[in-house]
């Protein structure tokens, strides 16, 4: 079945939605504030003759005129990290203060494949970016224990959960081929368990951010509804003005 046609009744201008899904992704990097300012990162790109354009809504995001953002001095020095523009959104909404403890419940990169290689990818990137304030554990987020640590709650949590990845269709057109309703059921229960554990381990008054890269309401609104029903928490509202290269802005409820 055509995965995206499910959404036709939900979307006003479905043709525009389909056209958006077919547009190729631009090459975007985030400037790593630990190591460089956006100004210095841009000066280095100028020196390499690589054109760059800031992505208005986020001062640290730059769209580059190259297919190889990893092959730049900025990337080598850990000033730049290649990521989709939208991937900066969960952290922007989470918005931790200096000194706070944040649990990134699904920090290792890489869609729904699960293997230890993702853990070394996480460590490799963290060290290249000079992230010295991070501790990495390898355990199931659904029943996560804070046992190894000398504290018993987090200030904030970020659940960028594994999902059906429908939204990655712009970089991976084959993504929908693995799609099934059975997978949605299975992954939604995993997502709910991760989100609920994050709520339980976050202090009263703290913030939990839930994000996916899928359109499926089964993995988004339905998961939030169940977590809100079953845990001691309430939904908040965050807004981030996303104005990506001529596309309209919007706000994201959390």
């Amino acid at each position: 079945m055509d995965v995206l046609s499910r959404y036709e009744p939900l979307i006003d201008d479905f043709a525009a939605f389909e056209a958006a899904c077919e547009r190729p992704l631009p090459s975007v990097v985030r400037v790593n504030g630990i190591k460089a300012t956006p100004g210095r990162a841009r000066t280095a790109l100028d020196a390499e003759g690589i054109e760059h354009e800031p992505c208005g809504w986020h001062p640290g995001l730059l769209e580059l005129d190259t297919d190889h953002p990893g092959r730049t001095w900025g990337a080598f020095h850990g000033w730049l990290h290649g990521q989709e523009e939208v991937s900066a959104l969960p952290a922007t909404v989470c918005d931790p203060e200096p000194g706070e403890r944040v649990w990134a419940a699904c920090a290792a990169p890489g869609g729904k494949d699960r293997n230890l290689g993702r853990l070394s990818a996480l460590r490799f990137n963290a060290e290249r970016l000079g992230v010295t304030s991070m501790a990495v554990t390898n355990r199931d987020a659904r029943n996560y224990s804070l046992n190894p640590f000398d504290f018993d709650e987090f200030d904030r949590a970020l659940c960028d959960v594994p999902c059906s990845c429908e939204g990655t269709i712009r970089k991976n057109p084959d993504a929908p081929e693995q799609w099934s309703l059975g997978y949605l059921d299975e992954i939604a229960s995993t997502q709910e368990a991760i989100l609920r554990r994050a709520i339980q381990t976050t202090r009263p008054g703290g913030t939990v951010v839930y994000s996916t890269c899928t359109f499926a309401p089964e993995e988004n609104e339905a998961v939030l509804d169940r977590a809100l029903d079953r845990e001691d928490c309430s939904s908040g509202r965050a807004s981030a003005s996303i104005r990506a290269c001529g596309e309209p802005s919007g706000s994201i409820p959390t």
Partner: protein
Amino acid sequence: MSEPSDGLAENHGSRFDRLPATPAEREVAGRATREAVLDFWDERYGIDPSVFADYSFWEKGSRKLWAFRGAIDSPIAIESLGITFLRTRQEHWKPTTDAVQRFGRHATRNVLTLSREAARRFVAGEDQAIEWDGDWGYLIVAHDLAGEREPLGVGLYLHGELRSQIPKGRRRELEGVDVDEP
């Protein structure tokens, strides 16, 4: 380096142990002390100990030291804590590429600044003949980028040759045209 001595425990490879502040507090044979680590960066590279004031130092794996910004109870059995930053197994201690990229900006000696072309060869992992009047051994290798000196990694300087110590996974072939080649 101190020899293992009677009554002291062995290093534990699967957990992080905070370094003792001084030799008097040492419980594991041969383990570096915080004092010795601060002295190393200060004496070898001129990095003031105050740069590391907010960091705790840890050992996991044999003689592999980690720097963590913050404090946490020791020991702790987890995958990683901060970044790897110093190897103390050999007589000459060796900083990691990531540590030099993170802290090397504060260095005031034993820093070798390369031209852009030599920097390109260095990050590709090539060894090259370079004139250098300073100390031999592990140097912080840098170049000028966007108006300031920026550390690239560690080079081993011996007999007129700079040997790149950039690990395989961090090497890059950077071929972009530089508009302002220094």
